[in-house]
């Protein structure tokens, strides 16, 4: 058998995710391209976040959760026995819905992750670079020792992005990163994502259809099976196509706001 040439950042094969006996996500096959932004959209409770959290094995913390099928990162199955979930999370960073900076200084919020991951270089430089890349440096450079809680919500979220990129992951997962932010902060996050995709693969879950249309290159549309209440990806395509001429009637109804 030929060794596979991994051309995708993440590829799922017949992926199903269970909580106990309940199949929350069913038979998902996705190929997520490198250095692109892929949006996952769909109505509430259809398993978007569950799917996202499977990518960096955050679902491991739910004691009853279980995964069938494969999730390949650059060709390596993230759920094979010899994979260390801690290392997976180092390579696949995550930004959450509500900004969740640590109750530490702005500086330490970034330095901490680097330190626990064995960073040996110049910490000041890393902190500055990460803050610059997260478009936050100019606003906080004079108060690095101040608590992260003194920042506004939008700044906190950019700080969370900064500390994520400080540990140099390959992929960044974003779980509705702007849903708790005002429109201006949202716009800044979206601009930032466009910058970040030069170096990172980004997967974003969003409820905001305009946001998906604005920022993403590809969109996966998720929907529940009526009978089993399991979520699945019903359509996965170029964002333009999803929003202009989707091939699935349900996608069309959803993106035009007719239900969901």
């Amino acid at each position, binding site marked *: 058998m030929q060794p596979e040439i991994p051309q995708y950042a993440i590829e799922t094969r017949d992926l199903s995710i269970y909580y106990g006996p309940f199949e929350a996500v069913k038979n998902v096959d996705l190929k997520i391209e490198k250095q692109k932004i892929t949006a996952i959209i769909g109505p509430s409770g259809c398993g978007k976040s569950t799917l996202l959290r499977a990518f960096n094995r955050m679902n491991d913390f739910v004691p009853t959760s279980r995964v069938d099928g494969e999730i390949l990162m650059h060709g390596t199955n993230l759920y094979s026995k010899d994979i260390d979930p801690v290392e997976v999370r180092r390579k696949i960073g995550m930004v959450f819905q509500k900004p969740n900076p640590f*109750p530490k200084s702005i500086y330490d919020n970034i330095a901490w992750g680097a330190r626990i991951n064995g960073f040996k270089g110049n910490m000041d430089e890393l902190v500055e670079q990460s803050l610059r890349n997260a478009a936050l440096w100019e606003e906080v450079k004079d108060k690095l020792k101040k608590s992260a809680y003194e920042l506004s919500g939008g700044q906190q979220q950019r700080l969370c992005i900064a500390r994520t990129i400080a540990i140099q992951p390959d992929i960044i997962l974003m779980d509705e990163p702007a849903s708790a932010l005002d429109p201006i902060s949202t716009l800044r996050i979206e601009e930032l994502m466009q910058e970040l995709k030069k170096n990172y693969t980004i997967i974003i879950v969003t409820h905001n259809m305009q946001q998906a249309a604005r920022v993403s290159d590809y969109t996966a549309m998720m929907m529940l099976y009526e009978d089993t209440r399991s979520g699945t990806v019903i359509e996965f395509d170029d964002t333009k196509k999803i929003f202009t001429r989707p091939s699935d009637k349900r996608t069309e109804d959803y993106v035009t706001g007719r239900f969901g």
Partner: protein
Amino acid sequence: MDVSVNKSLASNSFRPATLKRKRRLNEGLIETILFMVGFLTIFVTVGIVIVLGDQALLFFNDPEVTLVEFLTSTKWVPAIGEFGIWALVSATLTTSAIAILVAVPLGVSAATYLSEYASLRARSVLKPILEVLAGIPTVVYGYFALLFVTPILRSVFDNRIGVYNMLSAGLVMGIMILPLISSMSEDALSAVPNSLREAAYAMGATKLEASLQVVVPSALSGIGAAVIVGISRAVGETMIVAVASGATSDFTFNPLKAAETMTAHIARISGGDLSYNSVDYNSLFAIALMLFLVTLVLNLISQWVISKFREQYE
């Protein structure tokens, strides 16, 4: 979908709304009761201070004693009119320090285990056991110290340690306040929002790194409160020290020696046949006042330390 509300039914069920100010008697009543209950605690505290201060004044007015001697001397021999409080304070500080050194690391570790690591099953077994520890009468702890811990210590230290010693009393006192510190710390740890743990894990933290470097520091003010309560409990503890640490009022910080704490001294003297209004009798109130002060000062110091410690986070 029918979402219309049957308006006539809904409005008939309420009393007619007038905009005039109403007298809400029960609101006022509740407020008065709550105020009185709150005031009661202040009243009791003030009352204690007044009673102690009043009697202590009699003590300090006695020609046999001076305030300076009381606060500076290290000899407490009432029989010959020596009243130096440091002889008793030293024992209180030593036993309390040992207790805190035992209870804080163990209590915080136990709390971290229960809150961050333990499975539901392990928790359901361990928590009740810890709570049983909290329910043991202190006199039992006292005899546990004297009859179980001291013999072990004597086999370790040979004859360098007496039958009565502060080490044994302090260790057992530590075990006594352990459940207090662990359950208060656990509450503080459980109150740390899960989003912080997730943030730590999502950055490639191991469980240990997340627990010790994110969750515990975030719960520091709650853990600090637990330590403060623990200190107060240790300083005020009477029975264990009365039974296990001896009745010699020597000035010493050596845990292998016997020494009498302020509380144990009060308990012992007031249990004897002491004539009312004698110097000895009045000295008890001066000691009690000092005990009050020591607790207060230790509380203030701990609060200050915690606020210093917290500053880097806030």
